[in-house]
């Protein structure tokens, strides 16, 4: 096993539900969450979840992936801005072809497999973003 299962377990809420912390002193959001505000050093933090729609800001396509990620190529790494909180996060896009990607497109969070510690180890799950599902009503 190459991955730290302790780290995956420790970070599961930020991976599964986009858990973050808001600083009650400077009001900035820290994602991934930390115990000390990265912006002002305060420990006066509250837990929040950023599970919300987002707009695509920019992206990069990875064609040569590291071990554990090879089967998921091409991997689309994206910087998105969350619609309500305006927080910018780094994520992956899924359910989209490269020629369908458009700046500013509306996206929604979905839980997906991110990597596998070969055929015998832990499967890592995390939130990725996909184009918002079109609704008929």
């Amino acid at each position, binding site marked *: 096993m190459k991955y730290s299962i302790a780290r995956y377990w420790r970070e*599961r*809420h930020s991976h*599964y*539900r986009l858990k973050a912390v808001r600083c009650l002193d400077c009001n900035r959001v820290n994602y991934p969450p930390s115990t000390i505000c990265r912006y002002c050093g305060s420990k006066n933090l509250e837990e929040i979840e950023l599970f919300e729609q987002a707009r695509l800001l920019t992206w990069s396509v990875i064609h040569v992936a590291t071990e554990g990620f090879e*089967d*998921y190529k091409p991997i689309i790494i994206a910087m998105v801005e969350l619609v309500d909180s305006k927080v910018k996060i780094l994520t992956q896009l*899924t*359910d989209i*072809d490269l020629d369908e990607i458009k700046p500013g497109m509306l996206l929604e969070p*979905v*839980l*997906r*497999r*991110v990597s596998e510690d070969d055929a015998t180890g832990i*499967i890592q*799950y995390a939130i*990725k973003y996909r184009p918002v*599902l*079109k*609704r*008929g*009503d």
Partner: protein
Amino acid sequence: MKPEENTGIVGWGAYIPRYRLPLKEIVRIWGFSEETPKGLNTIEKAVAGRDEDAITMGWEAALNALKRAGIDPKLIGGVWFGTESKPYAVKPSATVIAEALGITPDTMATDLEFACRAASESLRLSIAAVASGMVKYGLVIGSDTAQANPGDILEFTASSAAAAFIVGLSKEAVAVFEASYTYVTDTPDFWRRAYIPYPLHGEAFTGQPAYFHHIESAVRGLFKKTGLKPDDFDYAIFHQPNGTFPLRVAKRLGFPKEKVLPGLLTPYIGNSYNASALIGLAKVLDEAKPGQRILLAPFGSGAGSDAYSIVVTEKVLERQAKAPRVVDYLNRKKIIDYALYAKYRNIIKKI
């Protein structure tokens, strides 16, 4: 009063992956006759992407069920996950979904296996748990990335999808369970041994002694228990391993096909195993009107079938638009070829 009548469906949700494999691709690759998929009354099957599995699909169906129920996830006291394609052989899928949806830690959670009817057994368990007062809400999920030996007839229909239901007290329900009945025997029509990647089946033996006998026995058992008859139902939803069996079993039981077609999805997405009949129920609830009565009869090889009588309430109307409908997922599709399907379903041998 039967215990079921105290309980009902509070929220429902479905999920169908984006990708579709036209069955003519399987004809092209494996040299079948073009008539073979026509005999199955199926055109395409839904294929989970490379980053999807029974957990991720079940998560989205459950998320949709939560949106419709509008309840605090912490009030769910049982997460029961029916599948025959667990991502891990040992390590529960139910806990991943429960954690991701904020249901943990005050809950029961387990994966159940009974071929295609484990999720239906979960539904009966959740009815019992809610009716007894042991839990306030139960979350039932049926999700499968169905496996089939490449080139086997089963490959035409083995597909991927998920359905989820939150069971609670009848006073909050969009649809109340009126009665339920289960019929099981030891019938070896379909199985997968340990460490073997694909299931085997008894060809024609999967029909009369398995599918038809068990579903007909379960539905007739429900009729006997309740005094209900086919005319009393507005919809009939059966397990749908292909597009023809549900229509044949309906005819044998006295249901016209018009009552079956609204919940028959296999012609468009294939057989999603534990989600097969349940996604049909999700689609019917998407469209149902208060007062309508639904017959639901899932089936699982091995073998067993459950029959439920479900009556829709006024609350269904306010919750239908709170999450994506089955038809929204049906309309979102990208056609792929056999090569991409083989990659996505991990059936290319790599070292």
